[in-house]
């Protein structure tokens, strides 16, 4: 490098402290290592591909909405969403297509972990940074893919369990659980989390647990039968909002006053926030989408030329209860 130019630059830097700060930041990043993406630039145009597991689930539509809104705020980004339609084969081929297109960054919510692992490895090998949302593939963030952003299903359900044992049923009683699709990872994690959460209170009995596959109609049928068999059920924990809505219909049909807990905390007229605000359910625990966090991370990788990003970002859950539901409805 030309030395006189260097001196020149120093002089200018002294004149403008803001510029000096920027130069320092630049030096700091280059000292930490090469940027994750070579073609990064403040004024570049970038395509972000998002391989969504299944658009048909209201929660995932909510993720798409939040991601789309966050990406729209960044004029340099174009977001493409592919719907894996709940099928590992479809989702694999869509990620393959994103690789063919050479998207600048891949976001993925893998429908299942190990089946999507090979294609994520292909993307990484092709030099595409991969941020996993909500569910992760096999391997370690920072090594086998760039980063993971999401909630923790187990912890969210654990919170719901503690809420049940401490707040709803401190005196104990019968509790029922509506599980998601059997053999799907989040269903297992939420089931285990809730069970561990109520363990502290020995007077709580989980008298019934049934899989309702995340669906409101199956939940209604299952919970009706549970209420027949166990008329003293005081609390039902549903592993998602839709099943909670089904449980509510069943309780209403049986004329029982059962406290209902949902999971996901979706917005909108069919979502859990409204149901809690209007007193239909006792609570719901949000499953954060991480959409905003993902776009922020994409910004630091693609626009700010970050050399490293946090490899795991756990977005905390928010308990939605009678106290805060009404004010959240406004948002």
């Amino acid at each position: 490098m030309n030395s006189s130019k260097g001196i020149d630059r120093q002089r200018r830097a002294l004149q403008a402290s803001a510029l000096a700060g920027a130069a320092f930041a630049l030096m700091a990043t280059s000292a930490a290592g090469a940027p994750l993406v070579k073609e990064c630039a403040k004024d570049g145009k970038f395509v972000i591909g998002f391989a969504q597991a299944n658009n048909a689930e209201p929660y995932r539509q909510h993720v798409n909405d939040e991601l789309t809104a966050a990406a729209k705020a960044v004029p340099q980004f174009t977001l493409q969403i592919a719907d894996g339609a709940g099928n590992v084969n479809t989702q694999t081929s869509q990620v393959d297509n994103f690789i063919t297109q050479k998207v600048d960054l891949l976001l993925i919510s893998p429908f299942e972990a190990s089946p999507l692992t090979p294609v994520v490895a292909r993307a990484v090998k092709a030099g595409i940074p991969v941020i996993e949302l909500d569910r992760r593939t096999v391997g370690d963030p920072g090594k086998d893919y760039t980063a993971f952003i999401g909630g923790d299903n187990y912890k969210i359900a654990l919170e719901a369990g503690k809420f049940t044992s401490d707040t709803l049923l401190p005196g104990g009683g019968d509790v029922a659980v509506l599980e998601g699709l059997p053999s799907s990872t989040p269903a297992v994690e939420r089931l285990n989390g809730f069970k561990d959460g109520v363990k502290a209170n020995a007077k709580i009995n989980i008298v019934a647990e049934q899989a309702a596959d995340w669906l409101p109609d199956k939940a209604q049928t299952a919970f009706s039968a549970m209420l027949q068999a166990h008329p003293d059920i005081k609390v039902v924990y549903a592993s998602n909002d839709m099943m909670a809505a089904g449980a509510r219909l069943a309780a209403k049909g049986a004329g029982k006053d059962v406290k209902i807990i949902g999971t996901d905390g979706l917005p909108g007229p069919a979502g859990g926030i409204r149901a809690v605000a209007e007193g239909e359910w006792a609570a719901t625990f949000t499953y954060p989408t991480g959409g905003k966090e993902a776009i922020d991370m994409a910004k630091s990788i693609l626009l700010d030329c970050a050399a490293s990003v946090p490899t795991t970002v756990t977005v905390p859950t928010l308990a939605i209860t009678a106290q805060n539901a009404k004010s959240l409805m406004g948002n």
Partner: protein
Amino acid sequence: MPDVGARPTTIPHGASKSAPRIDLLAFAVRFQSLIGLVLVAIGGVIFSPVRHGHILFLAPDNIANIIRAISETGIIAVGMTFVIITAGIDLSVGALLSLSSVLTATMMVSVGWGLAPTLLAVLVVGAAFGAVQGWISTRFRLEPFIVTLAGLQVARGLALVVSNNQYINISYGDGPGLAPPIFAILGDRLFDNTVPVATLVFIAFAVVATIVLNTTRFGRYIFAVGGNERAARLSGVPVTAMKISVYAITGLASAAAGIVHAGQFNFGSANDGTGYELTAIAAVVIGGTSLFGGSGSMVGTVAGSVMLGALANILQLNNINAALQLLATGAIIVLAAVLQSLVRRREGVTR
């Protein structure tokens, strides 16, 4: 129901309908899926995003993406073609794929069987499952629609039982709880990362099926059963055995697809393969095989499968949303069926 259509089919030479004259429409229908495939490919080239002067749609890795994505449903569609030519239907295939993937994973990982015994056992179970459906359907004179609908439920239920409601990961290596590493080849791509092994299985399956359907007595019998069952029976075709065997073939195909699924995705899951029966039936219908039985083409089925895959691919490359893909597929199925119906009417066959 008696066949009122006067169809001058000579049994057992019903494989190729005797065409009294060159019929342009019939010609178009016979090759409709090939024509459709060519049209989709041309559209793909025209609308393909271009990078550095290369047409993305035609890039070798993109072609590999397309043919890998359709390998499982393609294998099933090939089996389904046999059933549909006999005027039957098999709705259990997707569930049977899932059961087979679960069985493959369980046997290798939990039970500790070797590769060959596992694959053989899964294929036998699949074929037997299909044969039982065929037997029930013929023995009790039940619509195959109902029998295989029940079969769908049974296969899903069995998959949940075998997997114990968990999805079963396959890890590779030597020793207990690990699958033979060679099995992972199903997820690989050979020859400089261009030829997916899953596709090779599909191609092998399709080649054997084409030969069986077009050159053997077995194939001619299948067309005969679908064309006119009574006539076939009268002329000594073992109709019941043929019907049972076509369901055994779809069962075998589903098991093979399930093995490919387990190998590609390193797991067995009781939830997978949902809706595969409909994709496979769509590919068969687009391929020019009549749901009324008696006519059909294996090459057409393969072309139909590839066409559906190419269509999904080009729509995604252009970032066109999933809803439109479904609409496009629906429109193509209707078009294929309408073309077939026009030909049938022209031939004076009314059913």
